């Protein structure tokens, strides 16, 4: 099998974040500041990535603005020729820092949206005042003309505000709105009972997005990530394992996807002791589920095997107990009844409180 070079690198510069969203894509075991890669090591990682064929760099976290060297890292990446995308909550950005980021050559900002009003957004983010600070910096981004995508993470508690979310994206001059329904890994899995949309909400969101995309064509582009438990077929996680992108955690661990550390039987290499190119092409972790040879039935003989690549390995482990099983979201999976059972309990229920993302397990 010939292995194509990766196109994108997700750099989780830090796991520090002022927010504590209960669906955070960071692992449940967060990494501390003391273990983060230093500036020069990150720069070297970006250089290696560019040489390897990476074109798009996502500067993420945690909150990447928690890194004081964000501007310096952005400048290095932009000078290499990487397309630099800042994935941020906006908290920690200031007009002065935007000046420096623009000067450094930042190409695009993806701003997260927890909710359409302060009461809801601050409850989801677990940070009072966060919404107002976000809106202030969002208007600053708009007025500067920095290309902006709004990433609205949607779930049972805010899906009914989708119309207002779309209005806000237009008001903020965003070119793109990502309607990203929560995917249930890590923190989100812990909070699934409080986040899982109902069947009616799932139908409504699809309809609303399709209609708005038509009405707003040329004004706002849409990307829609549906709640995959309700889908007939699984998502093509990462476009196929080890096929398009890689993820580097704050301490330099290189992963095929942000949740891959839940696959505890795999060993993940670090940029501290192995070259990124070696890790991409030759490591056991990146080759574990690459291509289609690893697949079990019903994937192996399925005509969709190169469409969805068997779905998500982390979800297969979490829900079917086997990382090399067909993603149970698939209606052909022998474990699909488990998904049906979870959804039967997904009707609106009393809010039992979130398990907030935190380094300190006593704060829930």
């Amino acid at each position, binding site marked *: 099998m010939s292995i194509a*070079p990766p*196109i994108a690198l997700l750099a989780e510069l830090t796991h520090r974040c002022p927010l504590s969203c209960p669906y955070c894509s960071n692992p449940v075991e967060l990494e501390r500041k003391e273990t983060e890669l230093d500036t020069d090591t990150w720069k070297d990682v970006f250089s290696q990535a560019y*040489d*390897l*064929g990476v*074109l*798009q760099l*996502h500067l993420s976290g945690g909150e990447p603005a928690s890194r004081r060297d964000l501007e310096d890292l952005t400048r290095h990446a932009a000078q290499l*020729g990487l*397309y630099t*995308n800042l994935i941020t909550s906006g908290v920690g950005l200031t007009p002065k820092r935007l000046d420096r980021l623009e000067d450094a050559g930042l*190409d*695009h900002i*993806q701003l997260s949206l927890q909710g359409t009003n302060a009461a809801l957004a601050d409850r989801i983010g677990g940070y009072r005042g966060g919404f107002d600070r976000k809106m202030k910096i969002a208007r600053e981004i708009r007025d500067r*003309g*920095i*290309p902006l*995508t709004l990433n609205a993470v949607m779930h049972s508690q805010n899906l009914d505000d989708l119309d207002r979310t779309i209005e806000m994206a237009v008001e903020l001059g965003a*070119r*793109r709105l990502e309607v990203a329904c929560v995917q249930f890994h890590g923190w989100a899995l812990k909070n699934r009972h409080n986040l899982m949309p109902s069947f009616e909400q799932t139908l409504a969101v699809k309809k609303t997005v399709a209609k708005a995309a038509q009405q*707003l*064509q*040329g*004004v*706002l*582009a849409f990307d829609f990530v549906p709640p995959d438990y309700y889908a007939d077929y699984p998502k093509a996680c990462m476009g196929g394992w080890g096929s398009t992108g890689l993820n580097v955690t704050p301490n330099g661990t290189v992963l095929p996807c942000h949740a891959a550390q839940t696959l505890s039987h795999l060993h993940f290499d670090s940029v501290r002791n192995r070259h990124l190119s070696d890790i991409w092409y030759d490591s056991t972790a990146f080759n574990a589920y690459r291509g289609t040879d690893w697949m079990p039935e019903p994937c192996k003989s399925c005509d969709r095997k190169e469409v969805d690549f068997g779905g998500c390995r982390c979800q297969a482990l979490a829900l079917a107990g086997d990382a090399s099983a067909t993603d149970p979201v698939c209606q052909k999976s022998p474990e699909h009844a488990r998904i049906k059972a979870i959804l039967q309990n997904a009707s609106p229920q009393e809010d039992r409180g979130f398990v907030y993302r935190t380094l300190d397990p006593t704060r829930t």
Partner: protein
Amino acid sequence: MTLVFSASDRPYLPRGVRIQRDAVRDRTVLMAPEKVIELDDIGVAILSRVDGQARFGDIIAVLAATFGAPAETIEKDVQQFLQTLRGRLYVMVKP
């Protein structure tokens, strides 16, 4: 809003969208927010003329002359190509 280009429209690549060489894969790509689109020679020929100055009608005329093809055929292809990009806001228009 319609995505169709009129002859007097002046299309351009907005901030955050650019044509770039991809040395590792020996190709030219359009770089956009969280997206890389591979360009063939015709794509490059079209987008290299999309500069916010040239009008859509003029771009068609130049391409028709360059490729020795009927303007109607060229226009159909270019409309389709640029409308797809305009739908994603990778191409915008000055009146």
